[in-house]
Structure formats: structure tokens, C-alpha cells
């Protein structure tokens, strides 16, 4: 008996149940805690290999019906996703009114993103991609401010356009090959006609929207900045893993086709734009949440660059960076949540928090060093691998850009650290800080994430060695001459 579908079905069912329990605080708290524990176990119950839904399988050499593909790489990705999900759920329990709606939407997002990661069927991927978009919009609307509504509306507007275009691309691919299954489609794409390249273009548009690469970067950053900070931690996790999943699909389908090199170049250019725009916009922000949001875009560029290189080392580095990034960026957003509880997120009005919450300051500093790629934290390991992958295909410029963007990240992060924790402040401000309590559960989640930052920085092999087999299967070696 293969329990693989439970990874998607269990969160969805719990989302429906919790949605109906909205307002009943005690039951919601209890159930949320149980679900958060159960989520961590979920990735380990499936068996590796294909899973065909409703008894369909390979008939007459063609795969019919919806299929999931599960392997070590996807297990690691889903485990990280579920871990961040359960930490965010536990943090959310500390909010004054335990909120069934919030838990339900988070679970819906978790289910849909894990389905996007698992799916081996293009239409199934599209459906869950749209559900993820709706869940993210819902999470932003749940924070209930005017600006949040605006950001959500703009995100939905773009989302409908990108979603329709993605479906158009899937229609092109379906008409060119007659099948929707990704593993199957690969075999039929070799006799390529121009329609296939239309499909590729549309898939890339869908990918940029789902992951917040340019030209959708401002919309996505707005979304992160307007949600409550601990919700933003969840949102950026969703978009990083959608990016990983869709990039793997594109590589799997189109790698080695004639003219793919052009698309390759376009993807690398997009990721460079993402990196540079993200960090430049972050340097200009005066609001801590916006600063973090633009850094999420910039780091998304790193992930995309690694995956777009398409060599086994590049793919491993990209996925590893995605995992590291969601860990330290969630820690930063949780730190921002604690600061937000004390006194807003406007950098000009903050200051002098170090003596009030020294432990949080230390953990946030660890995460900040990790995001700027300082050893011995995890960001260093994956950025090093990314630079190595760029050098391996004879693109030293890419490695140089990565290092320069890292320096920009370091500068803006240290500026924010000074302005929040070290800048001297008045006596009355300290009294104001002391009057507001610190959310304890957020500190617990922050501690777990910081521990993971250091653990993966010292022993990267526990993740990296699991990523290699699939990367060798998909990636090809090539080098610029």
C-alpha cells in the first residue's frame, strides 16, 4: 500500500475541517498543534517511484491518468516545506485569536505546493499552481489592512493573466504531443514543431509569475511586504518551491532540444535581473518588511540561476540554495514579526532593541550572516556551490555577479541590524518596548531555524547527497567554448 497521495490529501482535508471550526479557539489551537506535528511525518510515508491515480497506469505504452513521481530530491524538498509550514503554524497559535481561517489557508497552500512538486502531469500542475495562487492571496487578505487588499488585487490581476498564458502553453504542448504526462511527453517532443517553442515561452511566463522573477518582481515583493511577517515566511517558501518544481519540469521536458540554448540564455538573464533588481530595490527601502521582501526576490534569482545552468552541479546547488534560503529567510521574517510586535517595522522609528531581546538579536544576526554567505552558515555552502557551478560552465561573470550581489545583501542587512538593534534610543521608547510582551512560540521557531542554519552550514552533506541522483538524471554537462 502506497500512502503517497496523503501528502496532498491530508493537508487539504484538515484545511476543510479547520475552516469550519473558525472562531472556536480552543479546538483550533489543539488541532493546529496536532496537524503541525503530523506534517513533519508526512514526507516519509510515501514510496519512491511513480504513483498512478485511480488504478490507471501504463496502457498500450501510454501513461493515462494523473501520475505522481516521488524520489529522494522531492522528499527533501517536501520535508523542508512541511517543516517551515509546521513552524509557521505553531507561531500562528501564539496570536491572540487562534484563527481557523489562517490555518486552513496555510494548509491549502502546503497541499498545493507539494502537489506541484510531486506532479508528473502538466494539467494537474496547472490546477495546483492556481490553487497556490489563491491560497497566497487569501493569506494576504487575512492580514486585513487596506494595503494588503491592494497588493492582493494586483497579484490576482497578474495571476489571472499568467495562469491563462500557462494554460495556453499547456494547450500548445498537448496539441503537439497528444499527451499531458511529463515523462511521456519528453519522448514525443523530439520531432519538434514551432508550437512546442510557444509552449516553452508560456511555461517560462508561468514560472516567472509563480516565483516572482522579473517582470513580476514588484507584485510579489508587495505581496510579501503587506502580509503579516510570519505569513510572509510561508509565502516565500511557497514561491521558492514552485520555482524549483517548474524549473525542473522545463529542464526535464526541453533539455537537449534544438534552440533550447536561447531559452537557457533567457532564463539565466531573467535570474540575473532578479538578483540585481532585488538587491538594488532592497538597498533603497526604509521599511524592514519591504527590505526583506526584496531580498527574497533577489535570492530567488540565485536559485533560478543555479537551476537554469542545468548541469548536475548547478541543479544541486539551486535546490540546496532554495532549501537554505527558505530556512534563513523564514528566520528573518520571524525576527521581523517579533520586532513588529514591539514597534512597527519602520526603520527610522526603531532602535535600541538589543538589551531588550538579546537572544532574538543573536539568532537574527546568525540568519543575516547566513543570507550574506558568511561561513560557517548554510548560505555560504550553497552560494559557494553556485559559484562553482557557474565556473564549471565557463561563466565566471555570473560568479562575479553573485559575489557582488552578496556584498549588497550584506550591506543592507547590516544597515538594518544597526538601525533596529544598536542605534541608541530614548528612555520612554525602552519603556514602550518593555510594556509589550514577546511571542514565545515565535522565539521557539526562530531557535529551531537558527539551529538548522548552523547544522546545514557545518554538515551540508546530509542534504546534498540526497539531491545528486535526480540531478544526474535531469542535468546535462555542457560548457561555453
Amino acid at each position, binding site marked *: 500500500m502506497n500512502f503517497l497521495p496523503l501528502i496532498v490529501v491530508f493537508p487539504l482535508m484538515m484545511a476543510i475541517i479547520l475552516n469550519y471550526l473558525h472562531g472556536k479557539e480552543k479546538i483550533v489551537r489543539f488541532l493546529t498543534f496536532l496537524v503541525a506535528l503530523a506534517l513533519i511525518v508526512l514526507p516519509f510515508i510515501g514510496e519512491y517511484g511513480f504513483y498512478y491515480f485511480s488504478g490507471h497506469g501504463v496502457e498500450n505504452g501510454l501513461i493515462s491518468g494523473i501520475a505522481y513521481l516521488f524520489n529522494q530530491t522531492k522528499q527533501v524538498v517536501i520535508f523542508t516545506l512541511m517543516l517551515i509550514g509546521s513552524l509557521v503554524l505553531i507561531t500562528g497559535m501564539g496570536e491572540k485569536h487562534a484563527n481557523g481561517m489562517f490555518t486552513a489557508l496555510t494548509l491549502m497552500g502546503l497541499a498545493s505546493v507539494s502537489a506541484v512538486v510531486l506532479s508528473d502531469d502538466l494539467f494537474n500542475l496547472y490546477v495546483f499552481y492556481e490553487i497556490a495562487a489563491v491560497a497566497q492571496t487569501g493569506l494576504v487578505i487575512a492580514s486585513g489592512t487596506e494595503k494588503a487588499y*491592494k497588493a492582493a488585487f494586483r497579484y490576482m490581476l497578474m495571476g489571472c493573466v499568467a495562469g491563462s498564458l500557462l494554460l495556453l502553453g499547456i494547450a500548445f504542448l498537448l496539441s503537439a504531443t497528444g499527451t499531458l504526462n511529463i515523462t511521456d511527453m519528453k519522448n514525443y517532443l523530439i520531432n519538434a514543431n514551432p508550437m512546442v517553442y510557444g509552449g516553452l515561452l508560456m511555461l517560462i511566463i508561468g514560472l516567472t509569475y509563480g516565483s516572482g522573477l522579473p517582470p513580476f518582481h514588484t507584485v510579489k515583493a508587495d505581496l510579501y511586504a503587506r502580509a503579516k511577517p510570519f505569513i510572509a515566511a510561508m509565502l516565500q517558501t511557497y514561491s521558492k518551491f514552485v520555482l524549483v518544481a517548474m524549473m525542473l519540469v522545463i529542464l526535464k521536458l526541453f533539455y537537449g532540444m534544438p534552440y533550447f540554448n536561447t531559452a537557457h540564455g533567457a532564463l539565466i538573464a531573467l535570474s540575473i535581473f532578479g538578483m540585481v533588481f532585488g538587491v538594488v530595490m532592497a538597498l533603497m527601502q526604509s521599511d524592514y518588511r519591504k527590505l526583506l521582501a526584496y531580498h527574497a526576490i533577489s535570492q530567488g534569482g540565485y536559485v533560478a540561476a543555479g537551476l537554469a545552468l542545468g548541469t548536475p552541479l548547478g541543479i544541486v546547488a539551486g535546490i540546496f540554495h532554495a532549501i537554505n534560503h527558505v530556512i534563513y529567510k523564514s528566520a528573518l521574517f520571524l525576527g521581523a514579526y517579533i520586532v513588529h510586535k514591539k514597534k512597527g517595522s519602520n526603520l527610522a522609528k526603531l532602535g535600541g532593541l538589543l538589551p531588550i531581546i538579546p537572544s532574538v538579536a543573536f539568532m537574527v544576526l546568525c540568519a543575516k550572516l547566513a543570507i550574506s554567505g558568511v561561513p560557517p552558515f548554510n548560505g555560504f555552502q550553497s552560494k559557494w556551490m553556485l559559484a562553482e557551478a557557474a565556473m564549471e560552465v565557463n561563466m565566471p561573470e555570473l560568479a562575479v555577479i553573485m559575489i557582488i550581489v552578496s556584498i549588497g545583501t550584506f550591506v543592507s542587512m547590516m544597515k538594518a541590524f544597526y538601525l533596529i538593534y544598536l542605534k541608541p534610543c530614548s528612555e520612554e521608547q525602552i519603556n514602550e518596548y518593555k510594556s509589550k510582551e514577546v511571542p514565545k512560540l515565535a522565539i521557539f521557531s526562530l531557535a529551531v531555524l537558527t539551529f538548522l542554519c548552523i547544522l546545514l552550514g557545518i554538515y551540508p552533506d546530509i542534504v546534498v547527497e540526497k539531491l545528486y541522483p535526480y540531478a544526474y538524471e535531469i542535468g546535462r554537462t555542457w560548457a561555453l567554448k
Partner: protein
Amino acid sequence: MELQVASFITAGLLIVIGLYGVFFVDNVIKKIIALSAMGNGVNLVLIAMGYNGGVVPIKLPNMPFEVFASKSAYPLPQALVLTNIVIEASMLAIMLALSMVLYKKYKTLKASVILKED
């Protein structure tokens, strides 16, 4: 075959008009209408793709299987379109609700006022 070409041309027009409306019309509701038109264009592409001049893909009891298999339209796109209609309906519902909330705040439907960056 002519029917298929005509549907593709209609679908292309719908998608282009939809894209124009989303990006250049300064009214929130009209933007949503344009999105709906665009979605319908995509649906039409899918439907027209599966059409081959044959019969609807419903197997009548007195029809031999070979005739059905060679004549009927490709049923997979039709299933996809049904799913997509549901998704689109829910997306548009959320957007209409949001535009209502924003209208109450700003007392106008101009996108240049409502969606201004700040």
C-alpha cells in the same frame, strides 16, 4: 476543418483583446471583464484543438467501438476546459469581492487611483 481555423482566429482575437484590456483600460471592472474574455479565448483554443470534424465523444449503445474511436473528438481537452472554468470562476469571484472592498474605500473604480503604488 474551416470551423477549427475560425475558432483559432476567434480565440486569438479574444486573447489579444483580453491582454489589451488588462493592461491599458483604466477601470477595475473592465479589467476583470477583459480577464474573463482572455480565459474564454484560452478555453476555445483547447476545445478547438480536440475537434476533428467528428462526433461528440459520447459512446451510444448501438455504435461500434471502432467507429467511435476513429470519429469522435478528443475528449481530454474538454475535461480540462471544465476544470478551468471552475478555477476561473473562483478567481474572478475573489477579484470581484476585492474590487468591491476597494470601491467602498476609494469611492471610484479607476485603476490608476486604486492600484497606485505607495
